[in-house]
């Protein structure tokens, strides 16, 4: 934007000349008590729920408790400058954050302020959106039909996620929950080449809640290295920030995602993690003296998560005609990957059961699997996707159809086989197949695979091509096969990358013969 100094001066001159020097009236109160990030305020009689209030030195707060003669607030900044007896002004506004393309590639806090030292984010007041929004209504929605490819074989094959779905990622600490999200974000580069202006590009929002600052730096570095930051926003409320910022940040992140959704874009949002958000919310609510319930969480901790996750949805194609004020285009979606951390694999704790019941399925990560070398450590037996089946690519659906049952049989027989008695051929075959499939589904970090690459690898497993290969050779065989296909059958691979490609007999024949050719080369 070109700025002419004389124009600026004339605008400022007009502003000063037209300045009304009359007195202003403001609703005010006084701080009765302040501490632990919350304040009680006397007065502020016209204060509304969730209204922003301004303390001295521009520190802001949010009114959360409206009582007969006082107002309970959480502070959104440094509480040390707020003193007893200070004047508090009401603003008549709710918390809003800047949204839009300018935020892509940036790291911001729960208020949308930059945290990456790359200067001011150039957004105007029109880009501000309140962080609390109502979820799309029933008529504005559509069933989930398009795939949200994670690039991870075990997920895309057996727990497919669709655009607009909420898929919970749950597991103990150190089981690869964040890694799964990073891979999924990196994989979105395949949707539009990493160019955020391409309407096909899936945009990503990574919301870190109560994470170590070092973890967030690592995530940022990985995403930058993979060229994924160009279409990603990181909303960071790290462990050192106020509890208020931690529990508000998912709503801010969602408001930023909604801006894109309402313009017809597809967004992937990850909340990492909601357990810490619930901790922060519990802390604030106990300090505000709301009555504690189960595990000392306040009564509305379920609503805390349900109102958040309901905002992730697939919008109807004619959403724009239904509500032109809110939606500038239809067909957009927000896919949510909420993360919940369990203790010792206990999914029956309060927050995990709540979030499991809200979401459309869960990916369960297990530390036993992780330490036995199965990474990603997805327990496919108890991981489900309730709506994603309709969104799985037809070719993948066909190829991966038998995968789940084969693995289930394998796990059952594996326990038997440990007795070491003589096994019949059918059992031995099922054991060989299962071991190959487990090996096949292992995948390194930061290497998400394209749809075509996944289909070819899984076809090699389910069609029995891998049965003759030594277990230890499986990774190198699959890698070689994918390279072989990319080099010699590029047309097939491009076709398979299209979602809608059906798994025809002709296609199967081509892939099968290519597998056999490569198998010959590999053993030689």
């Amino acid at each position, binding site marked *: 934007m070109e700025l002419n100094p004389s124009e*600026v001066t004339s605008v400022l001159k007009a502003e000063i000349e037209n300045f009304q020097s009359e007195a202003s009236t403001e609703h005010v109160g*006084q701080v009765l008590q302040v501490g632990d990030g919350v304040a009680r305020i006397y007065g502020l009689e016209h204060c509304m729920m969730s209204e922003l209030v301004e303390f001295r030195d521009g520190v802001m707060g949010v009114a959360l408790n409206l009582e007969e003669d006082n107002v309970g607030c959480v502070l959104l900044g440094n509480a040390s400058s707020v003193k007893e007896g200070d004047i508090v002004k009401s603003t008549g506004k709710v918390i809003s954050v800047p949204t839009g393309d300018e935020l892509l590639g940036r790291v911001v806090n729960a208020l949308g302020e930059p945290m990456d030292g790359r200067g001011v984010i150039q957004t105007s007041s029109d880009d501000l959106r309140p962080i609390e929004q109502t979820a799309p209504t029933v008529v504005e929605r559509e069933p989930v039909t398009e795939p949200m490819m994670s690039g991870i074989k075990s997920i895309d094959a057996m727990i497919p996620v669709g655009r607009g779905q909420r898929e919970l990622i749950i597991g103990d600490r150190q089981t690869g929950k964040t890694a799964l999200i990073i891979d999924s974000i990196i994989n979105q580069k395949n949707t539009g080449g990493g160019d955020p202006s391409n309407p096909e590009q899936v945009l990503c929002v990574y919301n870190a809640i109560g994470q170590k600052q070092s973890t967030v730096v690592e995530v940022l570095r990985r995403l930058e290295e993979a060229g994924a930051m160009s279409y990603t926003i990181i909303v960071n409320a790290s462990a050192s920030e106020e509890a208020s910022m931690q529990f508000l940040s998912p709503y801010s992140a969602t408001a930023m995602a909604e801006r894109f959704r309402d313009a017809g874009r597809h967004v992937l949002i990850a909340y990492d993690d909601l357990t810490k958000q619930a901790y922060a919310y519990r802390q604030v609510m106990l300090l505000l003296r709301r009555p504690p319930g189960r595990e000392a969480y306040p009564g509305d901790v379920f609503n805390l998560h349900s109102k958040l996750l309901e905002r992730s949805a697939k919008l109807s194609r004619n959403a724009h005609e239904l509500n032109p004020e809110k939606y500038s285009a239809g067909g957009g979606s927000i896919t949510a990957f909420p993360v919940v951390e369990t203790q010792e694999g206990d999914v029956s704790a309060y927050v995990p059961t709540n979030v499991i019941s809200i979401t459309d399925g869960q990916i369960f990560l297990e530390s036993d699997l992780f330490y036995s070398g199965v990474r990603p450590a997805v327990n496919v037996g108890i991981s489900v996707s309730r709506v994603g089946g309709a969104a799985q690519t037809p070719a993948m659906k066909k190829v991966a159809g038998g995968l789940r049952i084969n693995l289930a049989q394998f796990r059952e027989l594996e326990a038997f086989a440990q007795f070491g008695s003589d096994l019949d051929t059918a059992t031995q075959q099922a054991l060989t197949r299962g071991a190959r499939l487990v090996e096949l589904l292992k995948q390194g970090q930061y290497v998400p695979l394209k749809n075509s690459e996944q289909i070819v690898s899984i076809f090699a497993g389910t069609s029995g091509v891998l049965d003759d290969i030594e277990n230890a050779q499986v990774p190198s065989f699959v890698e070689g096969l994918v390279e072989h296909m990319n080099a010699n059958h590029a047309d097939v691979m491009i076709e398979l990358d299209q979602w809608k490609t059906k798994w025809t007999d002709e296609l199967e024949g081509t892939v099968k013969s290519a597998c056999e050719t490569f198998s010959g080369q590999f053993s030689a």
Partner: protein
Amino acid sequence: MAIAAQSTPAASRYGLALFEAANSQSALDAVQGDMSLLGTVLRSDVGQALTDPRWSTAAKLGAITKAFSSGLHPLTADFIKVLARRKRFELLPQVPVVFARLLDEHHGILRGQLEAAFAVSDETLAAVEASLSQETAKKVVLGTSVNESLLGGICVTLAGILYDGSVLGQLNRMRTRLETVEL
């Protein structure tokens, strides 16, 4: 600026009961006199002793009746005894505050605070009070204080509303305008 005194719900109820009793006996002014006296005493060192938990309630009651034996209106004296019998003696310091608030409401008085950069003259104060009385349709009584950081003009806080006519406030508003002006 003194922080607005807060009263617990129990103190409000006892205060309201006393107020209504005094009103029905047309003894509002007499009881108010007692209350302001009590308020002054309770804010002093004597008041500290009267709220000291190491003293028994009977001893405190004895001390008060002895000290005020002649001066107190019978209603006030009885009220103090009721407080003692109901084991609510610790509410006593709050009652004068509640009573004064109820009395103000009864007489239609609004109390507020005027802050100015320089000491204001009595005429100015009266003029401000008159104009605010007209706006709020109540009798406005303002306390005054001097705050040099305002630079000029006055600020009035009345019933939870800040009327800001100070130079500082105008400068702040000008800054916000210039910072947010669309170029």
